[in-house]
C-alpha cells in the first residue's frame, strides 16, 4: 500500500513540476497575434486553395489585418458575401467585385480537330506540350490530358470523353485560378460570370494565319475580323490573327456570334433566339 501511495505522490510531484515549467515557457515565448486575424479567419471558406494569392486562408486574413484595407485583396471562393462580412467586422470600406468563372477557350474536339498523330508518353499536358504541337496539329489547342481537371480543388471540372475537352461546372467554379495556371497553353481564362450568368467569348487561342488554323481545326478563329466590324460597343480586338472579346465592354448583344464564319464565338446561358432570327442561330448557344 505504501508503495502505491509513494508512487502516486512522486508522479504527481513530477507532473506538477513539468506543468509549472510548461506554463512558464508558454508565458515567456508567447507569440502575439492580433485578435482581429481570428475574427477575419472565421469568415473565410477555409479551403486553403491559394486563389487569393496567399499561402492559405490564415495568411490571407493576416494580410488583410496588416493592410487595414481590402483594396487588392479578394477571396474568389468566398466572393462578395465575405467582402461584406469582413468589411463590416473590421469597420473598413470594401468594394464588391463582379463574380467570375473559368472559361475554356478551345473547341478543338475530336470531331472538329481530327487526330493527326498519336501521343504516347507521360499523360500530362505539360509533357505533351514540350514534346510536340499536339495530336491535332494546332500548336495552341487543348491537349486533352487533364492537367486542369487534376488541379481543380473544388471538383468543378471533368473531362468530356466524347469531345476530349474539359468541361467546367459553373455552379461549383470558385474562380480560384488554379486551372488557369495549370494549362501550359494558357487556354483557360477567368471571365466575368455576367448578368444571369450570360457571357460571350471567342473559343479559340490559335495565333496562326487563318489558312493554317482552318487546316487543323474546323472551328478555329481565322482572324477574318468580321466580329470586330460587327461589334457596336468596340469590345472586340484582333491581334495576331486572333479575336478577343473584352468582357468589361461586352454588352451581350450577340451580333458577333452570328457573324463568325467558323462558329468560333460562343454564347452561354442565353435564351433561344426569336423565330425570325432562328435561321442564324448556331450550335454554339448553350442554354
Amino acid at each position, binding site marked *: 500500500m505504501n508503495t502505491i501511495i509513494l508512487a502516486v505522490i512522486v508522479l504527481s510531484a513530477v507532473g506538477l513540476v513539468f506543468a509549472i515549467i510548461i506554463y512558464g515557457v508558454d508565458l515567456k515565448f508567447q507569440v502575439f497575434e492580433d485578435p482581429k486575424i481570428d475574427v477575419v479567419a472565421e469568415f473565410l471558406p477555409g479551403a486553403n486553395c491559394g486563389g487569393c494569392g496567399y499561402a492559405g486562408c490564415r495568411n490571407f486574413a493576416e494580410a488583410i489585418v496588416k493592410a487595414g484595407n481590402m483594396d487588392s485583396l479578394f477571396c474568389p471562393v468566398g466572393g462578395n458575401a465575405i467582402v461584406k462580412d469582413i468589411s463590416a467586422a473590421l469597420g473598413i470600406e470594401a468594394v464588391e467585385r463582379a463574380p467570375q468563372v473559368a472559361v475554356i477557350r478551345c473547341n478543338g474536339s475530336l470531331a472538329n480537330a481530327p487526330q493527326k498523330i498519336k501521343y504516347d508518353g*507521360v499523360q500530362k499536358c505539360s509533357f505533351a506540350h514540350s514534346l510536340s504541337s499536339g495530336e491535332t496539329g494546332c500548336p495552341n489547342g487543348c491537349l486533352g490530358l487533364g492537367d486542369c481537371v487534376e488541379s481543380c480543388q473544388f471538383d468543378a471540372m471533368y473531362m468530356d470523353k466524347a469531345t476530349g475537352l474539359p468541361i467546367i461546372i459553373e455552379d461549383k467554379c470558385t474562380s480560384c485560378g488554379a486551372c488557369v495556371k495549370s494549362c501550359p497553353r494558357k487556354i483557360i481564362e477567368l471571365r466575368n460570370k455576367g448578368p444571369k450568368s450570360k457571357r460571350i467569348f471567342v473559343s479559340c487561342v490559335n495565333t496562326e494565319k487563318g489558312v493554317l488554323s482552318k487546316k487543323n481545326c474546323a472551328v478555329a478563329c481565322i482572324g477574318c475580323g468580321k466580329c470586330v466590324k460587327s461589334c457596336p460597343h468596340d469590345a472586340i480586338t484582333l491581334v495576331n490573327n486572333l479575336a478577343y472579346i473584352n468582357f468589361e465592354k461586352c454588352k451581350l448583344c450577340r451580333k458577333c456570334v452570328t457573324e463568325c464564319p467558323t462558329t468560333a464565338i460562343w454564347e452561354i446561358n442565353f435564351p433561344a433566339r426569336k423565330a425570325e432570327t432562328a435561321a442564324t442561330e448556331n450550335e454554339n448557344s448553350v442554354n
Partner: protein
Amino acid sequence: MLKTFKIGGAHPEESKYSANSAIEVIEAPATVYVMMNQNLGAPSVPVVAKGDKVKTGQLIAKGEAFISAAVHSPVSGVVEKIDAWTDASGYRKPVVIITREGDEWAEGIDTSDTLVKEIKASKEEIIDIIKNSGIVGLGGATFPTHVKMAVPQGEIAEYLIINAVECEPYLTSDHRLMLEKGEEILIGVQILMKALNVTKAIIGIENNKTDAIDHLTGIAKNYPGIAVQGLTVKYPQGAEKQLIAAVLNRQVPSGKLPIEVGCVVQNVGTTFAVYEAVQKNKPLVERIVTVTGKKVSKPSNFKVRIGTPVSLLIEKAGGIPEGSGKVINGGPMMGKAMINMDVPVTKGTSGLVIFDEKESKRPVVANCIRCARCTMVCPMGLQPFLLAGAMEHDNVELVEKNHVMDCMECGTCHYTCPSNRPLLDMLRLGKSKVGEIIRSRKN
C-alpha cells in the same frame, strides 16, 4: 588494347543494318526548305529576299549572335519565300524555301573528288573559313564549330579528339564516311590540329567498326601525331565527356568544357566538312543521312542536300514499310519522333529510323522497385530514381541539389529501368524547371 569509360553505360542492340551500304548520292530535289535554326544557339538571319536568284553554296543567312552559324543555299535557283515551316516537333519555325533551277555552284568552289593534301591556309584563316562555311557539329548536337575551335584566353589545347564512335544503334553514316573518305578525314584532322596548335590527335572508334579502325590505322601511318584508338562498344561513349574519359582517363569537371582538361572534341563528319571547306572552298550544304529500320527494304546511307524533305529519302530507301508506327529523326536513344514526313533534312539530321507499330509503343509502366539499375548505368553518376521521384512531387530543390543539371539526357536510365518508368521525361522536366530558377536568380 580497347579502352572505355568507367562510370555507367549500357549496351543496346546495335542493329547496324545499313553498315554495308555504300553512300549513295540523292539528287537535289525540286524544292528545298532550309530551316533558319539548324544549330544550337541563336537562329540565323536571312540575307536574301523573295525572288532573289541564288547559286549552290551561296550565303543565304548570317549568324549574328556569338553562338550562331551561317547557312548556305543547297541548290541553285530562286528564293520562293521566307516563311515558317513545321519542324520535327510540329511547331513552325522560320525557313527559306528555294525552288531549284539546275545545279550551278557559286564561284571558287571545287566540286571535284580529287584529294588536296597541302594545307595552304594559316591557323587564323582556318577558323575564319570554318565560320564562313557554316559548319556545325554534325554528330547531332550542332554546336557551331568555329566557336568550339576558338580556345579561350588562358587555356591551352593539348589533344584533338575525333569522335568517330557512333554509339547510337542503327546509325552508320560516320562508319561509311570513314571507309570511303578516310584520307580526306585525316587531312581534315591535320587542318584542325593546325588551327588548335596541337601535335596530338586521337580518333576514337568503337569496336563494332573494325574495318574502319583497320582502314584509318593504315592511313594514319603517314600522318604523324594522329593515333586511332579502338573502344569497347558501350552507350553513350559518343558523348564528348565520356569519350575523353575513355581515351585519356580525364574527367571534365561538372559545368565546364572539355578545354578545361586540354581537349577539343570534333565529330568525324564535321572533320570531313572542315576538309571540304578549307581545301575545296565548299561550304556546308550536304551531309550523310542513314535511313534504316528492321522492316526497311533498302537500309541506306544517302548523301543529301540540306533542306530535302525527309519523305524523299524514305522513298529512295524502298518507301515507308507497311505497318510503320514511328519515324525518328536521329538515333533511337536521343532522337526526336517526327510528326510527319514533310520535315526537311537539317545539318543535325544524322539518320532516320523507322519503327513498326509494335516497336513504337512504350511498354506499360509499373512501380519503382528500387533495384538501382538506373543508378548503376548513369554515365554522369546521378540517381535517376531519386530525381524522377522528386519531380513527381514537384520537389525542385531536391532535384537541383542532386545535380540534375549534369544530366545529358542520354536516356540510358530510361532504357534500363525494369519497371519502364518515364525517367528521362521526368529528368527533362526537372532540368527545365531548375534552368528557369537558375536564370531567374541571375536576373
